[in-house]
């Protein structure tokens, strides 16, 4: 059943499906209904990390070194824990500056340097080529294996065939065509490919399902579970070492080096940068991806060792390459459906990697290598051309074909000598060279263009010498003496024991020396001189990316430019229609209907430059914008000044906000204080007017009687004595009135003296009754008391409390009818305090008056007929005293049946608690 037409049809159908998904994704994106705005899709797209290296190569690696295949998945797991910090910062920088690739990132950071962007591009292309060769090797060998089904025949050496007869050549061409159709159909200013991401996420799903299927099949179909396989292995002396320990050739150093290496690869591989940073839709997706992506890695690795061991047991002595076990095991069992699924899974792994990687690289080649060269040498014709978007697409398509052909070339030259994983590690080591310039650029302001150039160049050269050239030597394209005796026969220069350093595996060895040279040169050269204008500016933009820097770029631009020139410039690269739309959208965002002004402000220039940066790279965009704008160069002092000002402004504005908050609070307090003052003032006025009125009454009486006495010397003695008695009692009333007014004023203004202490309320009540007994006798009234013993003490001022009691008792007496009056004084305990009641059988108080009597100078009763005998201040003062000690004073009365005045006071302990609380 698995004849060539079936296999080819299945492969083409699968590629067609991918294409349909991508087309649908792009369409939805254009409609604004993104299908990739989902953290799970984001995590799956990151799984483009798992290529045919993982799908076929891991098993091959495990067959040699046991669990030595694992560290390259542990490193990414660890990095994802830090991804919330590092990736987030990268995403912010990329979005703010419209960066489209690693080359653009580094070039932009160190002052938009063409040279640096070009160098990064060269390193990336050269470094990734072995990785692409790996995919070609894996895919071509699986196709040849399938074509010889049901026999299992290891594919012959490509190097011995002519190119025309070599299957991998055609695979490279098909992949190139597919990638071109896939990724470069149109030019987008942000270089985002939603459709591609959707397809990649689908591929990640397919390869995981395929790999798990074959893992379950081998473990539970061919063998009886994991335990069974490991038991078989235990009986094989030459396999036992695979399951027991870290492989001896690798050691803990090698293990650690691979973790570090893969951690850097996850951040700096062009395709990972593309899916994780450039294609990120929403930075919140990072959170879910932080554990979902590592979980994916764990799942796809669970069955690697069982498959490797199963294959080794099954094919013992048959010369089957362990890199093909994933496919050959189901083939050997004649399981055609599973075989086809595995083939499709491998195709997913390979095409996913090749598509994203070559698209990312072609963007770099176009923006950071070809465009700068064209700008330098063909400036004239570029500036005359109306629409350059076709040219840009052409460059990218050419770059895709060239990169795949270079991959094929490497496969022919060196691919045969290595297993899949070993080839991949060469590429990993190359992209690790970006780490110092990238990480340093994001967290250290001092890095300069010179430092980055020196570091990258040094690291790249060491990498080439210790890893790439030896791979050619091992394939026989360089003399073997290069490896064993060193360059020019100098032993110290042996590429894999450089300067006599031995005891490390080749990857750790290369990683150590290349990063040593790289970091040393980067830091060393950076420290030689202070950063220049552009470097200092960009350092701030990158290092402070997580702070709110606002439009720093716009602040740092000074010059003149015309809107029409800028739009024309953008139009030449993006197409006039797209430029028109982008500028109109910008105007709408700025709240203006149209860009009518002729002069562009710094912000618009910044906007135009970032649009261009998406299409041709930030360095070229800088040059192109400078060509249409008259710019005034800023000196380093000016830039530092502006940057200082910007940061000072931020500090000042924070300070200002704090001050203003404090001011608001102070104003509020002042307002309250003012209101209180006004209230007091009003109270004082009230009292003054009432007092003067109240004082006038007794004064008038005194004066009238005094005049009577003066004017009538012959007045009878009896009359005279009566008048004198009246004068004395009115004068007493006047004194009482003045005393009470002063007293009330003191209480209300809070200046009264309170001597709070624990009191036995019963004693106070008894003392008060004794003091007023004369009054009761005069009215022949009866006093009943009901005062229980042993009540808890209360907290109050004794004299004040007696004042309250005297007031209540004298009030009661005042309204009693002579002879028949009864007053009852009660005391009882409540839940939280004591209650005192004074009940009389006088006329009572009308409900309407029951609150009025507590107001100042209000005496109820008919003032026309009955002469007021009190001051009208007794009850108000009493109520304030009771309230001061946390109690309440009120009256209950039914007219005609007497009145009961009650007040409560809390227990001493409760009061203390209230004070403490």
């Amino acid at each position, binding site marked *: 059943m698995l004849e060539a037409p079936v296999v080819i049809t299945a492969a083409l159908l699968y590629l067609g499906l991918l294409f349909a998904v991508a087309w649908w994704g792009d369409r939805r994106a254009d409609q604004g209904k993104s299908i990739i705005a989902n953290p799970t899709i984001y995590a799956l797209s990151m799984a483009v990390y798992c290529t045919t290296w993982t799908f076929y190569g891991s098993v091959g690696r495990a067959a040699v070194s046991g*669990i030595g295949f*694992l*560290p390259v998945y*542990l490193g990414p*797991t*660890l990095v*994802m*824990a*830090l991804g*919330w*910090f590092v990736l987030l910062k990268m995403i912010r920088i990329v979005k703010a500056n419209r960066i489209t690739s690693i080359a653009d990132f580094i070039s932009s950071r160190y002052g938009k340097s063409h040279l640096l962007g070009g160098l990064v591009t060269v390193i990336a292309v050269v470094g990734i080529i072995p990785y692409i060769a790996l995919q070609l090797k894996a895919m071509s060998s699986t196709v040849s294996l399938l074509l010889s089904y049901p026999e299992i025949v290891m594919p012959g050496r490509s190097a011995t065939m002519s190119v025309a007869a070599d299957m991998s050549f055609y695979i490279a061409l098909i992949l190139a065509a597919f990638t071109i159709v896939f990724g470069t159909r149109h030019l987008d200013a942000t270089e985002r490919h939603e459709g591609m991401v959707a397809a990649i996420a689908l591929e990640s799903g397919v390869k995981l399902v395929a790999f798990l299927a074959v893992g379950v099949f081998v473990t539970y179909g061919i063998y009886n*579970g*994991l*335990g069974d396989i*490991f*038991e078989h292995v235990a009986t094989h002396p030459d396999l*036992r070492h695979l*399951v*027991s*320990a*870290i492989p001896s050739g690798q050691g*803990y150093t090698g*293990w*650690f080096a691979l*973790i570090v290496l893969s951690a850097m690869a996850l951040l700096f591989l062009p395709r990972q940068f593309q899916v994780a940073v450039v294609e990120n839709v929403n930075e919140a997706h990072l*959170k*879910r991806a*932080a*554990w979902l992506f*590592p*979980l994916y890695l*764990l799942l796809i690795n*669970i069955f690697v*060792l069982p498959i490797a061991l199963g294959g080794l047991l099954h094919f013992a002595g048959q010369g089957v390459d362990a890199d093909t076990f994933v496919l050959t095991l189901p083939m050997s069992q004649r399981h055609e459906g599973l075989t086809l699924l595995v083939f499709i899974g491998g195709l997913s792994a390979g095409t996913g990697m090749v598509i994203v990687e070559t698209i990312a690289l072609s963007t770099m080649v176009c923006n950071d290598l070809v465009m700068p060269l064209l700008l330098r040498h063909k400036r004239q014709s570029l500036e005359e051309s109306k629409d350059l978007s076709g040219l840009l697409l052409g460059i990218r398509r050419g770059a895709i074909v060239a990169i795949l052909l270079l991959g094929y070339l490497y496969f022919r030259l060196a691919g045969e000598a290595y297993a899949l994983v070993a080839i991949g590690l060469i590429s990993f080591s190359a992209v690790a060279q970006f780490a110092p310039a990238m990480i340093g650029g994001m967290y250290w302001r001092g890095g300069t263009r010179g430092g980055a150039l020196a570091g990258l160049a040094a690291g790249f050269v060491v990498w080439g010498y210790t890893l790439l050239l030896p791979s050619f030597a091992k394939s026989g394209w360089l003399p073997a003496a290069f490896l064993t005796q060193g360059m020019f026969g100098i032993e110290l220069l042996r590429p894999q024991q450089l300067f006599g350093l031995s005891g490390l595996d080749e990857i750790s060895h290369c990683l150590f020396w290349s990063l040593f040279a790289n970091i040393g040169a980067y830091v060393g050269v950076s420290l030689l001189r202070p950063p220049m204008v552009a470097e200092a500016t960009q350092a701030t933009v990158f290092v402070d990316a997580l702070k709110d820097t606002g439009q720093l770029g716009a602040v740092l631009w000074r010059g003149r430019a015309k809107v029409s020139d800028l739009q024309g410039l953008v139009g030449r690269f993006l197409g006039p229609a797209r430029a028109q739309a982008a500028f109109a959208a910008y105007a709408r965002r700025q709240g203006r209907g149209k860009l009518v002004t002729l002069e562009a402000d710094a912000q618009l220039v910044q906007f135009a430059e970032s649009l261009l940066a998406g299409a041709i790279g930030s360095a070229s965009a800088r040059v192109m914008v400078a060509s249409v704008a008259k710019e005034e160069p800023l000196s380093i002092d000016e830039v530092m000044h502006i940057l200082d000002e910007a940061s000072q402004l931020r500090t000042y504005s924070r300070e200002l906000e704090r001050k203003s908050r404090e001011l608001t609070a102070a104003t509020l307090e002042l307002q309250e204080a003012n209101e209180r003052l006004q209230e007091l003032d009003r109270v004082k006025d009230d009292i003054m007017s009432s007092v003067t009125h109240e004082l006038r009454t007794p004064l008038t009486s005194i004066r009238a009687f005094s005049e009577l006495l003066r004017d009538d010397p012959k007045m009878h003695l009896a009359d005279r004595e009566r008048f004198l008695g009246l004068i004395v009692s009115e004068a007493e009333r006047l004194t009482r009135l003045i005393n009470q007014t002063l007293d009330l004023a003191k209480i209300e203004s809070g200046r009264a003296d309170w001597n709070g202490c624990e009191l036995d309320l019963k004693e106070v009540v008894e003392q008060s009754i004794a003091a007023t007994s004369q009054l009761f006798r005069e009215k022949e009234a009866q006093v009943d008391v009901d005062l229980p013993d042993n009540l808890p003490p209360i907290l109050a001022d004794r004299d004040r409390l007696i004042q309250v009691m005297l007031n209540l008792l004298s009030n009661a007496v005042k309204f009693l009818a002579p002879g028949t009056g009864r007053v009852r004084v009660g005391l009882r305990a409540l839940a939280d305090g004591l209650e005192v009641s004074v009940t009389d059988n006088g006329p009572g108080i009308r409900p309407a008056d029951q609150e009025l009597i507590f107001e100042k100078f209000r005496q109820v009763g008919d003032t026309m007929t009955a002469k007021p005998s009190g001051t009208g201040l007794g009850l108000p003062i009493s109520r304030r005293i009771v309230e001061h000690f946390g109690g309440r004073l009120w009256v209950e009365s039914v007219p005609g049946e007497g009145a009961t005045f009650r007040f409560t006071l809390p227990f001493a302990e409760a009061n203390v608690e209230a004070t403490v609380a």
Partner: protein
Amino acid sequence: MHRRILAGDRLIAAFLVGCALFNYPLLSVFDRHAVIFELPLVYAYVFAAWAFVIGLMAWAVERRVK
């Protein structure tokens, strides 16, 4: 804001735990001939530690802080 800082600290903790669990010398403790649940000890250990670190990270970012 407070929640963000806490989640970030937890992720850093997961990173440090992972660094310790995945490397020498802890790794060497399990690097010997032994079988646990029918599996080679080092194989079981690495996967268990790996799953543990992933669990930590999931807990750090997904759990709502009260």
